[in-house]
């Protein structure tokens, strides 16, 4: 009888503590980031894992929808031996329970924007398993140097990670890359604003061994992966085209047609001023063949290069 009263009392206290902790400040809230990291590192090396795994955690956290959503996704799969739920379960990522369940006095490894833990410490959890070629350039990447945490982009406690969905990845990227978000809406741009293309078609958010974290070794190689007709080589090359597509184009968008930095004839005249027609002042666009229609491209239509034996002027 006394045992039962004590048991009920204990359960009640635990429940009240759990509920109060989920709604109020935690005892470790006043720790600085460094102190928290130190504390968690000590706890991690002590390795005091719970005796019942996820059941110990879910005793308190099972009413939290966000927590339970882990079972909807890959990380909650119990039959995949690489999944955390098939191993140390919740503690595989959140660290050993220690005395966390005894009045909630000890912190756990937490993720997300409210976590005081450094990005590198948070990311070490993910990298413990995700050590594949896609992450090969992570450490030198801008996202790592800018201390972006995996959880800033990725959501694990859900059926689907928005960063891995073709229809929402652009929103994930453009929530920080606001200039590029605006560029999508310019007069000409790649069809990103309708999610017909995604940022990751060209860029690797985990970093790459190319400039601007591009997927391919060079800028031009990246463009050729969709515009293979521009790859050539061709008999008569246009030197700035061969050297770098972004000499003339801004792939994120432009107020000019064709994602051009300026339109013809002005763009062409920023490089061509020969003793001939190309250096003439074009005062109005629709008056003659120099400013009307396709401007310089009325004649020099093979602007990306020509394979015609007589095509050195990129006309045929």
């Amino acid at each position, binding site marked *: 009888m006394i045992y039962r009263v004590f048991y009920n009392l204990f359960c009640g206290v635990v429940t009240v503590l759990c509920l109060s902790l989920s709604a109020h400040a935690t005892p470790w809230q006043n720790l600085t980031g460094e102190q928290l990291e130190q504390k968690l590192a000590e706890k991690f090396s002590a390795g005091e894992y719970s005796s019942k795994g996820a059941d110990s955690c879910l005793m308190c956290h099972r009413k939290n929808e966000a927590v339970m959503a882990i079972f909807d996704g890959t990380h909650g799969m119990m039959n995949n031996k690489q*999944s955390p739920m098939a191993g140390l379960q919740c503690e595989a990522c959140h660290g050993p329970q220690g005395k966390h369940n005894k009045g909630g006095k000890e912190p756990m490894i937490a993720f997300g924007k409210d976590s005081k833990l450094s990005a590198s410490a948070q990311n*070490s959890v993910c990298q413990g398993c995700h050590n594949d070629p896609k992450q090969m350039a992570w450490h030198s990447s801008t996202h790592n140097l800018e201390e972006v945490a995996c959880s800033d982009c990725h959501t694990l406690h859900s059926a689907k990670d928005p960063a891995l969905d073709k229809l929402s990845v652009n929103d994930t990227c453009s929530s920080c890359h606001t200039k590029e978000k605006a560029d999508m809406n310019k007069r000409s741009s790649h069809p990103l604003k309708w999610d017909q293309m995604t940022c990751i078609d060209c860029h690797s958010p985990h970093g790459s061994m190319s400039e601007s974290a591009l997927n391919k070794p060079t800028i031009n190689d990246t463009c050729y992966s969709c515009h293979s007709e521009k790859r050539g080589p061709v008999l008569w090359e246009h030197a700035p085209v061969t050297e770098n597509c972004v000499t003339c184009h801004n792939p994120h968008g432009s107020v000019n047609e064709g994602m051009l930095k300026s339109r013809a004839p002005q763009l062409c005249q920023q490089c061509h001023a020969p003793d001939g027609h190309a250096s003439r*002042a074009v005062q109005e666009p629709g008056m003659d063949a120099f400013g009307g229609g396709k401007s310089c491209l009325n004649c020099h*239509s093979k602007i990306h290069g020509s394979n015609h034996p007589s095509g050195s002027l990129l006309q045929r």
Partner: protein
Amino acid sequence: MRFKLNIITVSLLAVSGSAMATNFGVGNANTDSINMDKYQCKRCVSTSGYRGEVSVSAGYNSVDDIHAGNALGTAEDGAIAAVSGDIRYQNETGYRAQMQAHQLGMDNGFANIKVGKSGLYELELDYQSLKSYQAGDVQSQLWHNDGMLTPSPYTNEFDLALKREKSAIGFNYGEGIYNTFIRYSQEDKTGHQSSSLVAPSPVNFGLPVDATTKQLDAGASLSGDNWLTELSYFGSYYSNNIKDLSLPHMNDVYSATPDNEAHQVSLSGQYQLNRTVMSGRLVTGRMIQDDALIQMSGNPLQSWDGQIDTLDGRFAVTSMLSNRLRLGGSVDYSKRDNKSSVWEFTQYSYNGLSGSFKQNVPQDIERNTYKVNASYRLASGYRLQAGYDRKEVERSYSEREQTNEDSLWAKLNVSAFDTFNVNLKASHGNRGGSDYEVNEVTSSQENALMRKYYLADRKRNAVELNVNHSPLSWMSIDVTGRYAKDDYDATEIGLTESQDFGYDVNLSLQFSKHLSAYGFAGQQWIDSAQAGSQSFSSPDWNADIEDEFINIGTGFSYGGLMQDKLTLGGDYLFSNSISDTSVGGSLVTANGTQPYGDYFSYNHSVRMYADYALSKQMALKLSYQYERYYDTDAAQVATNAVPGLTTLGELNHDYNAHQVMLSFSYLLR
């Protein structure tokens, strides 16, 4: 002495200890006391079976300009229908399947299927259809058939639109330390694009497009505790089904884009030594084009042996020397070696057959990039980063064979305040190089004062300030301002100056679990100045180009209505792109500059939806989309408005388009 040594040893250990990374990786876990036999996971939820949703949509499009198809997913005017879905399946033994489909049945849609066993193998099938619309009902007097463009009194009406249809199959296999993948895709691109030929006066026409690109990628990777390596191959094969084009009175007036292929083999790796990480890659590639050349007098070849060999390498290292200081650096090398042969070919001047011989110019390009950077935490919440980059480019047959650009940059990140994050970036770059020479091979007739902007001396200064403020738990505001200026000091003719500045404000509001809203606004200005010389001497005309972009958007989502059954939402977007050019100078007018004509576009886009749950399994969604689009370009003129020039007509847009859709969704579980 021994005691002192011990003190030193302990101190060193303490220092090295403090420089050790906090690594919470599961591989480092102290699992001595764990007995996983007691893990029962009674409270865990099994998600075996099917989950997700399938939806069928039907609706109506009101489209009178096919350009609206870009935003509406299809340019069909009238009834439309589509199937979408997102289904996942898994069973107790670890088999999984995922299927996602989006707007199948419309011009823009995709489907993706993945099946396999988690962590062991996966088969992927992918299909995507992507259609981009430029203009509809374009008119030309030229009719294309099998390489012949025949002029006709009957008008040929067609759409300037390109459709890409891509199918792919991929398979990956591996677990733990090894992984392999192979992927094959094929993309067909069809439609018409605007082009032009010289006959001998210029005639714009709709170039038929019918091409296929095949891609084969394969690779294998191996990993250990602190290393990782991957060997991969990428092959791409482009083939064009459109032949060289002729006019009845003029053979081969327009050469077809030749078939080509490219191959790359890449070896990459990463090695981690405590808090130092090294990564590197070597990619060797070859691009080949040996399509048959047009046979004509003055062409000595059946086909040309176009071949580019490429070599790209990189080595990067980054190290956390202490918990405050990170140092990094990288070296990049890229070589484009043009191995194609050089021959002489007859060239025609535009007004007749008085040609001369000219050699093709196989340009080589070699790049070296060096970067060093440091990041130092000044105090908790204050971090300073700085770096130096040097980019060297060497190119043959060019006015400037060497250019090098040195850049210094610095960033200050402040995250010490609870509700504020501040990031300040500044950079200074300086490009110079070898003497700028007018090269006989490339530009014997170029004005000696011309400096091509991608080769010219340039000073580039840029600054950016970003402030993120979360005054309340449900509100976040992000403000960014930018300014950049390029000065081409040594340029008298060509691009002389460019300024790019602007701001954007993004507001995010989460009023409650059910109600959220957002808003953003931004403007950008790009002002550039250039000079030219019609008299082939000093500058006698100049052009000022003032680009402006305005972007405003807002939206909301309100769920939880009618006992959690109804969600309402809406989005509005406005964008306005303007480019104003004015031409002035002594040649043009003594009284100032001459405005160049309209060149702008604007777009209002509204989307609204109501999502109603009929039951736990079924839902209805009613959505409406409105697109108002206007663009104009004074260069667009009627077909024969300019003597000696035949255009495709005025291809400007001015339309209102509407789409109403009703979707029925069935939720699995």
